[in-house]
């Protein structure tokens, strides 16, 4: 089952064609103004794109070429907008019951109470939205969105206005609700960590275009383009040159000749953008230097070191590349054991399989 989206619009600009897996939590991530909310609004039918095609498992919701456009109220969706959109004059129970007008009155109230209990807001049924905390409002909005058993749940920055501890509890609740009900969840967020934590599939968006999408781990570890790497906030973006072919193929990076993995991306000789995750830069132990024949050893000087909780982030100046900084991320105990400090000479390995080539175009 899949959820296919093809959207074209002028203001806000949208130009995307993507097929997402149904039944999973998909994180739509991008900077402010990248069109994330507009994508959700098009799916909900609240924004009519100039051209578009939206279909869930073959069921067409929108096809501008054939004049199909199911009104919002007929689309099997649940929507939690950024500010929740709760009906201010109705109690929590009344808000949820509003989603169940197709049921008889008695059943409506029963189901609404059950949904509120499921969202951990039982006992607050009679409270008006203004009498609820941010986290409680979010839960009521979630209960309302899930009340009709939607096939697609659209969440627009749902955790942005709650405090950190509430947010963590809500993460667990979202995961639990998803496990129970298994809707397709499209979670819009600008917080990459949040998306990485919750989503099984990531969709990176910039200026209304999908820069990259795929399983979360793959997108996070193997950005496909320079734009994707920038969106993922990768510090290690470098330019190199592919030299030679076959076994003799190397990536020239200053005076270094790095072994690269097999694959078409490294197949052509010439300049190439590439990246490596800071966690995949391996620091050689001071007391047991690696010979590193197949590990792309690079000698470097530590430019600076920053400790962030249990992690240490060091910027290294690789030998022969005075203007380049290679970022390395290790745990605190590894940094302490190797006495990682500014000015020290170290050796690191750029693991062959961790070197990721980057295309220059967006998609």
């Amino acid at each position, binding site marked *: 089952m899949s959820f296919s989206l093809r959207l074209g619009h002028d203001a806000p600009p949208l130009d995307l064609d993507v097929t997402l897996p149904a039944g999973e939590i998909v994180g739509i991530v991008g900077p402010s103004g990248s069109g994330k909310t507009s994508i959700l609004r098009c799916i909900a039918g609240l924004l009519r794109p100039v051209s578009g095609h939206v279909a869930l498992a073959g069921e067409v919701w929108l096809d501008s070429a054939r004049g199909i456009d199911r009104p919002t*109220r007929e689309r099997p969706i*649940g929507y939690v907008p950024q*500010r929740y*959109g709760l009906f*201010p004059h109705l109690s929590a129970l009344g808000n949820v019951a*509003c989603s169940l007008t197709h049921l008889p009155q008695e059943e409506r109230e029963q189901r609404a109470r059950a949904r509120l209990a499921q969202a951990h807001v039982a006992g607050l049924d009679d409270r*008006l939205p203004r009498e609820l905390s941010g986290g409680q409002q979010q839960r009521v909005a979630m209960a309302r969105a899930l009340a*009709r058993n939607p096939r697609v749940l659209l969440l627009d920055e749902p955790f942005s206005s709650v405090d950190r501890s509430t947010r963590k509890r809500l993460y667990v609740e979202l995961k639990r609700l998803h496990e129970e009900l298994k809707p397709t969840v499209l979670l819009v967020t600008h917080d990459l960590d949040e998306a990485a934590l919750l989503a099984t599939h990531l969709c990176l968006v910039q200026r209304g275009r999908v820069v990259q999408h795929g399983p979360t781990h793959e997108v996070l570890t193997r950005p496909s383009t320079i734009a994707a790497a920038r969106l993922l906030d990768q510090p290690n973006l470098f330019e190199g040159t592919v030299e030679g072919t076959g076994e003799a193929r190397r990536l020239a990076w200053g005076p270094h000749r790095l072994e690269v993995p097999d694959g078409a991306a490294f197949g052509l000789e010439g300049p190439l953008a590439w990246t490596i995750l800071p966690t995949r830069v391996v620091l050689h132990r001071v007391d047991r230097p690696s010979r590193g024949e197949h590990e792309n050893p690079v000698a470097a000087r530590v430019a600076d070191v920053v400790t962030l909780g249990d992690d240490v982030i060091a910027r290294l100046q690789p030998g022969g590349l005075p203007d380049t900084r290679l970022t390395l991320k290790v745990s605190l105990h590894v940094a302490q054991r190797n006495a990682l400090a500014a000015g020290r000479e170290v050796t690191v390995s750029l693991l062959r399989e961790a070197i990721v080539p980057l295309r220059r175009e967006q998609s």
Partner: protein
Amino acid sequence: MDWTALRLSLALAAVTLLVLMPFGVLAGRWLATTRSRARPWLEALTALPLVLPPTVLGYYLLVALGGQSPLGTAFERVFGAPLAFTFTGLVVASVIVNVPFAVQPLQRAFAAIPPDVREAAQCCGLSRWQSFARIELPLAWPGVLSAAVLTFAHTLGEFGVVLMVGGSIPGETKTAAIAIYDRVQALDSAGAGAMALLLLAVSFVTVALSYVLSERWLRPGRK
């Protein structure tokens, strides 16, 4: 005390309210939500009775409703009675004069409903009518109340237009405001004072009632 005039005023205010409110709700909602380029022009048109002197408005209404006008002639042919200088004519004039008093508070009330609330209603699967009846109208209720009170109170006190279109026919077009004017012209200060005091009391009670109702509406704990 001219009880007939007071009864006529109250009847005129009530009928005006009944006729105008449905129109005011629809027009106010439309003006609050439309993206039509005609909106500023239509807003200006609905606001016109606020800025025109009552005598000017009354003159045009008299011309429009009079026996020589197409509207007046057609009305007389269909219903067998004229519009000018009748209670029906007064109602027509009163409805037109009160358009801004009804439409503007309603437009403001509907415009104040956050767009995400309106959209949430659609996402909940509510039909247009359900969304209007369950969400929008209750949220615009303070505006409905303001519009009703303003229309009612303004009709009670309307003088210029009523005089122009209806004259001062006892039991037919002589409202309380006209009766006060007549009493003053007749140098009957006591009569004018009693009528004025009664009109003041009725207006005060109407406005006070609207405040009490809005207070109750906004009190928390409602389902």
